């Protein structure tokens, strides 16, 4: 085809990716808004092995070509992820938009990526040279900045199978559908024997990348919610100091207030 390559298998796609200067095209919903003139796409939308959702001992593995609609209809996908993708745009966009594309677009507003951050998801990146598994926060570095080499493709998102049961997800958009996040928040929480074993909170759409401060989270680990509660004020203040937010159609101050409110609500909800 003119100005494009299409691949039926991942291997074919990797060969093209290695040989040519191409832009990987998954669902098109972000790329086509811009549709740069003269661009050459590598069409991945017919590669069935990228569209698979599967489960192994540790992970729910979501193929980069899986669409949001596909995930919503799959009972193996964690509810937290479903909550987030259910609020993306509208059916037509969810039918075409993919997990890989959401990552590949490199925007901090990507709603599925926020969940990957709090879930400590890993990404499987492949090339003809082999494959590597990276943590999502090591991959996703800033606006349009990804640790993706010129010959690589995102193959799968590896979401931990457990630990996402207790969560909160909040999206603040401009309206109830067809809304781009102005602030988004996700948090997960687990305890064992009354002690906090995991607390992860992340904020989307408020800075160049998704914000998550693991060192702050660590200060609550091993404590009981009661003990954590005593540290809450200081904890929130530490967040407030770290949250340097950008303005968009809403002000940075608004975003910050919402983030802090949502974080505080989240803590309250889990007894902190």
């Amino acid at each position, binding site marked *: 085809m003119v100005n494009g390559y299409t691949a039926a298998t991942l291997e074919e796609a990797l060969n093209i990716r290695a040989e040519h200067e191409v832009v990987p095209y998954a669902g098109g919903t972000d790329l086509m808004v811009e549709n740069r003139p003269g661009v050459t796409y590598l069409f991945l939308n017919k590669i069935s092995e990228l569209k698979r959702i599967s489960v192994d001992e540790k992970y729910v593995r979501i193929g980069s070509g899986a669409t949001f609609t596909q995930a919503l209809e799959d009972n193996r996908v964690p509810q937290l992820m479903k909550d987030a993708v259910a609020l993306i745009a509208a059916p037509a966009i969810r039918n075409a938009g993919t997990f890989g594309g959401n990552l590949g677009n490199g925007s901090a507003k990507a709603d599925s990526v926020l969940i990957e951050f709090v879930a400590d998801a890993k990404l499987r990146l492949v090339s003809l040279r082999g494959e590597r598994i990276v943590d999502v926060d090591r991959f996703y570095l800033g606006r349009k900045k990804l640790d993706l080499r010129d010959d690589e493709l995102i193959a799968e998102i590896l979401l931990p199978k457990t630990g996402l049961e207790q969560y909160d997800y909040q999206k603040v958009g401009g*309206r109830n*559908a067809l809304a781009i996040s102005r602030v988004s928040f996700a948090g997960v929480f687990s305890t064992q024997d009354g002690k906090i074993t995991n607390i992860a909170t992340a904020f989307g759409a408020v800075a160049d990348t998704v914000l998550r401060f693991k060192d702050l989270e660590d200060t609550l680990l091993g404590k009981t919610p009661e003990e954590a509660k005593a540290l809450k004020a200081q904890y929130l203040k530490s967040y407030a100091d770290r949250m340097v937010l950008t303005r968009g159609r809403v002000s940075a101050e*608004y975003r910050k207030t919402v983030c802090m409110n949502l974080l505080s609500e989240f803590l309250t909800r889990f007894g902190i």
Partner: protein
Amino acid sequence: MEKISQSVVKKDHEPKMSGRSVYVGDYPGDGVLTGKLLRSTLARARVLDVELPVLPEGYFYVDKSDVPGDNNVNIVLDDTPVFARDTVEYIGEPIGMVAGPDVAVVNRILSEIKVSYEELEPVLDLRKADTVFFNYEYEKGDLKKALAEADKVYEEEFTTGYQDQTYLEPQGMMAEPEKNGHMYVHGSMQCAYYVHGAVMRVLGCRPDEVHIFQDVTGGGFGGKEDFPSILGCQVAVAAKKANAPVRCVFGRREDLEFTPKRHPSLCTYKVAVKDGKVTAMDIDVKFNGGAYTTLSAVVLQRGIICANGVYRIENLHVHGQALKTNTTPSGAYRGFGAPQTFFAVEMMMDHIARDLGVDSLKFKEAHLARQGDATSTSGKYHFPVPLPEMIEEVDRAADFRRKHLEYQKPQTGRYHKGIGMSLWFHGAGFTGSGERDFIKAVCKLHKFPDGTVEILASNGEIGQGLRTTFPKIVAHELNLPLDKVYYNHPDTARVPDSGPTVASRSLMIVGELLRRAAIKLRSQWKDGEDQVVEEHFKEPDFMIPFYLDKFQGDAYPTYAWGVGAIEVEIDTCTGTSKILGAYGSFDVGTPIDYNIVIGQMEGGFLQGIGYASIEQMNYDGRGRIRNNSFSDYLIPTTKDVPNLKCMLHVEKYPDGPYGAKGAGELPLVGAPGAYVEAVEQALGHGAKLNHAPFTAEDTLNEIRKEGK
């Protein structure tokens, strides 16, 4: 339900439903040149030079020097240029147009044109604007005395923002030179004869040398009242030079950024209260007109005439100005100046009531105008004012009074509720003596020998149902089956000038003319003959003559009335609000087709809620509109107001067809007052809100203020 109100299948249903309707962008492109505008990149500048690249064969550039006639578009005044004169006055002002067969080449040419400017200091702040386009003032009673004798004088300022019409079909016009040298201009429009007048002048030709046809039009809401005249002139000039058809259809961003929208406003109210009653209002209204006058004069007139709302105010002084800023010219949008002042007066009444410690609705009820009362302009409410009954209807549907009391109590937790009610009218038809002095509507019925009847009028079907309601009226009077009467889109070569499709006038004014024409035809009916009858506008006898210089007399023959209640739940963590219900009762007289009228009410009410809440548009420090895309300028989706209930209250108008009055604009007008009152109640803590749209960010700011 009366027979005329019973719903029928709309005459344009089938082609629109099946996608067969041809909108201006749908004509085949073979042999048609695409026109694209070269636009100013500065808000105010002198244009020193326009340097063109070498144009390939078959590509054209036109600007002011190519205008055969007058380079001014006839709107109300003539200051809007077809193509920029020596200066540009807003970002996006058209300097010229490039036309050619391949749109990619046209775009390349546009990008290669070098415009050199001498930049001038723009005026962007309405408060600092010093060019007054229009200045009106009127008064009645003794304002000074009332202010002096008042127990308390309240003063407050209200602002409203832009609202874009956001018809789903962007603006588009096409001009085709005809073999006989005439120019045929067609496209998406509300007012074929406005375009006719404008193009004729710009081409410097006789009326018969130009004809205008309204294509199927994908929504207007006022946005296609004056603007198609401008774009129509631009494509006509290009088509003249190229001697080939030229079409220009805007993209969404171009449409959002550079076409007229509702005037942002700044209203100051000074209100005297004595013994718990409002005795006087001193009102100052400022509308941001943008760079050219376009329709600002008439928008402002309507805005200031209803500045005192639905209330009887004995002592009244109203001063209104439309001011120039170096921004996209503001224009017509459903409501036409009234939503701004109704918002202000409703919030003002609410705030005074709260300060007096009385129920806001009771306070409003105590001031309602009644039949026989004088209007703001010392005209008269000639017909019953059904607001008290309509308030009860809305109260029943919304459970308003109970909820209003309940939500008044202090609320705890993350989510807080509020409910607000707003009362309003919409003056039906043109303001003042416009119908009598300027429009002088004429319509015709053409009966063919086979007994079918064609309606000849210039009003455009833009979704509001005229292709169905006009024939319903005529068929009803002639006792014909509906399929024997039809109404096509107007072509100025074939139809008389029955006036523009504006001001909620078409059905009430032209519909009544058609009804009278049908009676005439019935009395002259001869089977098998070709017959034509004609009817001319006559002002109703009861009208108190209106004098625009003094703003005195009946500004409108009658009024459509609206009562709306909106219930919200705000999230105190995020400031977002969920609309739990929106309830409206609307009196537009007899509905000429129940479904059509309900469709107008629901659509208009939702637009009003959008205006009040999520539809935010503003410009940056350079004068560039920031919210220029559909991801940035948000209009309601199916999920934003799922519980939207509209009811009809029928107070017949004897001079409208079967009692019908103006309908289209009414439902939008008062929505902002109801919404913002609801948010205000949910916020509690004595918050006094004074601007619309009131966004999530505004709500959170208000909560933060309380915290401090």
